[in-house]
């Protein structure tokens, strides 16, 4: 917060002071006022890694004790007797703290003195305290649609601002459809909504989207970054891994609105549930997405340990917003996680049967629930068909034939007679064993219930227990970020004392408790409530005033405006062009990719451009090779999935422009879109352009835009009329090869590159 505070001052605004207020009255507040001073100036030398002079400011007990000097560091109630203050004020540079750095500001020292006077109370870092029930603040206004808005509005008003108008209907439909299904609305969906004047038109749309089969695909895309899902093993030859059943499990779980607690338990410990189903075992592939090293001459134990460590780090990041990786080598420098606790966490994961085998053992060879359902449907359909030469019959047979079990890597425990012991690794070196340790959760984050067996299953249940302060907060924050482009806590991955502070802490707690309690971990209910809020529905127009006062939209006095994700850029182009295949589930597919991109390590897997509908499947189904992920996704900021990633950092680069201008995928989309544009009129380019613009945005182009596009169409058509050879080269698909269609295609290519199309606004 300290740095954000400075930044905002830099930007010339004054919205900061109230950010402190929620931390309470006039007493000096440890978490918001004192800890930041310690973390920025003191804990490097007097913290978890280093306790110079035998002083640590992480724990009160330690800070109240005498240091090496024999003088008490802090005497509650007596700043004048506290060595801390004496040293901060010292004039001799050898004595003065912080050593060899500029002195603290007088105000900071005064604050510390006041805090000591008031008793020098330590407080647990906010996120380690369970969320507390919050009453939505009273605000006199007609604006709020629900309680979320009251929290947001209170703060907007405190800063002397007003919320934005509701977004234009078409923009709003596009926004909510992209957010809930990852796809842009169809022309019919635009028409239906724009013509629906009833009061609950928007609510009806939201409910329709929440039941769409594409809803699960959209949210799976978010989850798969966390799960580090890929279709390959990661290292060296980066061989194929059959793990798509897990991806389908995630889609299905979101579609069914599986409560998030169950979603958690099945993925982390489905195998340990009583009589686990096939699907519950498939879910455990979550933690089999770790990399396997098939390189000759590698020590399997070394890379087994790497995988186990990755499971600890991933679990802690995904559910606890806690960065444990540094505790591998030493105690956490800022947060209260001793070195040993890392290995106690590791002990939960250290007894599974997998051991960096190239064949990914143990694997499950079973049909998933989804596959069995598909099989039953197809068998039923085939039974009703009389004409066995009919196309539909043949296609059904074909589909039935390809439904086969895969070899999904799953979690399994070693039998108890051959289980492993876990030792602390001295300085993180896996070959230097320290004391033996046993499974235990970190003290800072509450303990397992008394008497609970110390298994992965208990760990999973502990993560979603009402006592765990983190999980619900971390998760609602992730969903919030997906909708608004920024979390209530900006650092989705780090809720610790070095992470960002929540911009709306009461709202975060309110959402977290509601998610757990009233809504029983229903993600759909959570999302529904957020997208129905007036906050979400605001226009994203940005005035000069707002740009200056709140450049990052932390106050949410306007709607979100962010570039589409890598997946959405592709899916939108395909759906607008009519090429899109809505097919769900199944093995990953290979849409066109230039030759030679997979010139990776002794081609054990080959890229073959799909020729059937698999060419136009959603991005989510694209084959994901970790050492060489699909080029255009990486360009649009998708991660490699070699490790868990909470937050894609959005960039804006010329390579992105080259993809959407020149990648054959987008040229085929432009041809498809041009064909759709041509369907509505014989030869009138103005009408065609209007249709294309409508398919992409739901709106009629402004006069200026229409003119610019028409001018470009005219220039194009002049060229293609005089150069039939270019028409043949440019139009690669089975559409009529006319100058008109070539010019419409060039125009569609332009339209697919407009900022308003690449952006959710």
């Amino acid at each position, binding site marked *: 917060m300290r*740095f954000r505070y400075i930044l905002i001052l830099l*930007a010339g605004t004054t919205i900061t002071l109230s950010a402190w207020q929620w931390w309470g009255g006039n007493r000096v507040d440890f978490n918001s006022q004192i800890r930041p001073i310690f973390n*920025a*100036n003191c804990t*490097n030398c007097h913290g978890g890694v280093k306790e110079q002079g035998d002083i640590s400011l992480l724990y009160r007990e330690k800070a109240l004790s005498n240091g090496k000097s024999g003088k008490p560091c802090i005497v509650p109630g007596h700043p004048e007797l506290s060595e801390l203050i004496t040293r901060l004020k010292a004039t001799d540079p050898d004595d003065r703290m912080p050593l*060899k*750095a500029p002195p603290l500001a007088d105000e900071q020292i005064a604050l510390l003195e006041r805090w000591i006077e008031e008793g020098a109370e330590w407080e647990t870092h906010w996120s380690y305290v369970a969320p507390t029930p919050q009453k939505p603040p009273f605000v006199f206004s007609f604006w709020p649609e629900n309680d979320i808005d009251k929290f947001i509005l209170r703060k907007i008003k405190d800063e002397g601002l007003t919320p934005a108008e509701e977004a234009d209907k078409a923009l709003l439909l596009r926004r909510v459809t992209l957010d809930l299904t990852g796809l842009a609305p169809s022309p019919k969906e635009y028409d239906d909504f724009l013509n629906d004047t009833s009061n609950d038109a928007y609510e009806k749309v939201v409910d329709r989207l929440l039941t769409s089969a594409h809803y699960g695909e959209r949210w799976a895309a978010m989850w798969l970054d966390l799960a580090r899902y890929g279709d390959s093993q990661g*290292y*060296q030859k980066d061989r194929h891994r059959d793990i798509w059943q897990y991806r389908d499990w995630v889609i299905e779980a979101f579609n069914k609105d599986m409560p998030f607690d169950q979603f958690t338990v099945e993925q982390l410990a489905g195998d340990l549930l009583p009589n686990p189903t096939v699907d519950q075992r498939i879910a455990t592939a979550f933690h089999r997405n770790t*990399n396997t*090293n098939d*390189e000759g*001459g*590698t*020590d399997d134990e070394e890379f087994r340990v*790497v995988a186990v460590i990755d499971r600890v780090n991933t679990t802690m*990041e995904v559910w606890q917003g806690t*960065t444990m990786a540094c505790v591998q080598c030493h105690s956490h420098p800022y947060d209260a996680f001793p070195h040993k606790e890392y290995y106690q966490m590791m002990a939960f994961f250290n007894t599974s049967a997998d051991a960096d085998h190239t064949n990914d053992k143990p694997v499950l060879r079973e049909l998933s629930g989804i596959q069995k359902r598909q099989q039953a449907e197809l068998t039923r359909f085939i039974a009703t068909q009389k004409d066995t030469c009919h196309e539909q019959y043949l296609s059904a047979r074909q589909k039935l034939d390809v439904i086969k079990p895969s070899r999904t890597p799953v979690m399994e425990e070693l039998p108890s007679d051959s289980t492993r012991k876990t030792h602390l690794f001295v*300085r993180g070196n896996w070959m230097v064993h320290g004391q033996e340790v046993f499974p235990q959760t970190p003290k800072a984050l509450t303990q397992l219930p008394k008497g609970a067996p110390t298994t992965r299953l208990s760990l999973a249940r502990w993560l979603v227990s009402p006592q765990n302060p983190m999980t619900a907060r971390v998760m609602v924050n992730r969903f919030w970020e997906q909708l608004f*482009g920024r979390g209530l806590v*900006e650092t989705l991955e780090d809720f610790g004392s*070095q992470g*960002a502070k929540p911009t709306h802490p009461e709202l975060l707690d309110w959402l977290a408790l509601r998610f757990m309690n009233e809504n029983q971990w229903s993600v759909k209910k959570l999302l529904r409530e957020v997208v129905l809020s007036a906050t979400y529905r605001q226009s994203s*127009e*940005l005035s000069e005033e707002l740009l200056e006062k709140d450049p*990052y939209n932390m106050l949410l006095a306007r709607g979100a*405006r962010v570039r589409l994700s890598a997946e959405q850029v592709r899916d939108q182009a395909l759906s607008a062009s009519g090429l899109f295949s809505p097919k769900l589930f199944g093995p990953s597919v290979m849409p066109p990719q*230039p030759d030679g991109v997979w*010139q*990776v*390590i002794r081609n054990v897997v080959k890229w073959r451009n799909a020729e059937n509908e698999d060419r136009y499947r959603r991005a989510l189904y694209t084959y994901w090779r*970790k*050492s*060489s992920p699909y080029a255009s996704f*990486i*360009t649009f900021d998708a991660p*490699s999935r*070699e490790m868990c990633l909470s937050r894609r*950092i959005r*960039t*804006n*680069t*010329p*390579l*992105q*422009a080259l*993809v959407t*201008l*020149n990648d054959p995928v987008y040229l085929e989309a432009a041809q498809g879109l041009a064909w759709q544009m041509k369907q509505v009129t014989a030869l009138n380019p103005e009408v065609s352009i209007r249709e294309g613009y409508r398919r992409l945005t739901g709106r009629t182009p402004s006069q200026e835009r229409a003119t*610019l596009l028409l001018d470009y169409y005219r220039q*194009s058509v002049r060229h293609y009329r005089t150069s039939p*050879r*270019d028409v043949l080269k*440019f139009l690669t698909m089975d559409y009529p090869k006319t100058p008109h269609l070539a010019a419409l295609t060039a125009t569609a*290519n*332009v339209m697919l*590159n*407009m*900022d*308003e199309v690449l952006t959710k606004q």
Partner: protein
Amino acid sequence: MEKLLKELEQTDRQATTRRYFLKQSIGHMGAMALGGMMMGCDLFKGASDPSLDSLRLSHFAPKAKRVIFLHMSGAPSQLELFENKPLLRDLDGLDCPPSLLEGKRFAFIVGTPKMLGPYADFNQYGQTGSWVSHHMPYFQQSVDEVTFLRAMHTDEFNHAPAQLFMHTGSPRTGRPSFGSWVTYGLGSENANLPGFIVLASGDAIPSAGKSIWGSGFLPSQYQGVQCRSEGDPVLYISDPKGMPRDLRKAAIETISNINRVQHQEMGDPEILSRIEQYELAFRMQTTVPDAMDISREPESIHQMYGTTPGQNSYANNCLLARRLAERGVRFIQLYHADWDTHGSNSNEALEIGFVNRCRETDQATTALLTDLKQRGMLDDTLVVWGGEFGRTPMAENRGGKKAPFRGRDHHKEAFTMWLAGAGVKQGFSFGETDEIGYYGVKDRVHVHDLQATILHLLGFDHEKLIYPFQGRNFRLTDVHGKVVKQILS
């Protein structure tokens, strides 16, 4: 541990410097301010402080403006190239004494391997009298240009982890590559070309895959851009067939004009950034193919490098490296694959595959040094040559059997690398190994030390080039690394 503590103190002090201050204040987006050609992250909207440009300054005056890193992936044998060990010749065929094996881990060697004499003839060259084997007849003439690091060592003895270690400072995936760190810190000198370009030759890219030029947790604009010799030099850089240049130009203008209208309506500065990126993309469509077109080089240059336009060869990549360096590309990473010399098949044989790798590279590497020098570019260009680890003085004996060809196992304790150009001594040798080239006995240089030194030459304190991620500050050199001052000129 001590280094870590030192680093922590260091970062504390940095809190007062402007660079760090701004970086923290804009969180992860600090990166953008330091950006290469590819500016613009939408989280950074609104902050348009022109003085942010000054952030692209190094910590102190740099000696090197750019780096050409010639990575020989698979690990060439130092014992057949630069390390003349007569004793090893005498020991050829004898059992390795147990004292050399105790407590050691190898990738393939099991039981008691035999010692393997060098498959090379050595002579001294140049005024400095540096030893080079007969496998590199061209390079023999350039020894007075370079500083040899003869006692390099690393932590990893498997290819992928060791390559990751060399290029990202960590043996695990997910960290930013060397070139990403450098462009993050320095940006590019040429606004129309990527700041970090990768050229790969040989049968395959290195074992560790594209992760070794990925941007890890740095924003994706810092990832290495692979320039290819077949197909588009940069993916999707060519206009589609049947789309003439003037029509493409008109398309970009139309897009920009519509986006300007959009900006008037929505007020989001990110839209202006997008307009810039499209115009830059259009310019790159000319500058990249131009830089990548070696056909216009004079015949004398082709002779010198041994290049044939249109091939995917190391020689072509060396010439391209010079052309990219001339155009201000900051970090040019070459990979030449297949140096893995186990003796298990002919391509992995010292007698065959290894000799071929030397032939494929020797002339062009030397030409690159000569060419940079004759253009005065060696003064501000640093050239680095080496593999990810070294090779054992023992023969490989996979499965306890004698290999069909001569070959050596992976070895992390000793290998040779060399540096030439900006800021390093000419005709200098640093470090010594024991009589059989098994262990460094004097002036050992760890991979993190090498990284620290290269960053130093580029004007960075390697302990200050940091990026906050997952609650801690990350560096290329992790919590280690010491600048090798002795080799600085």
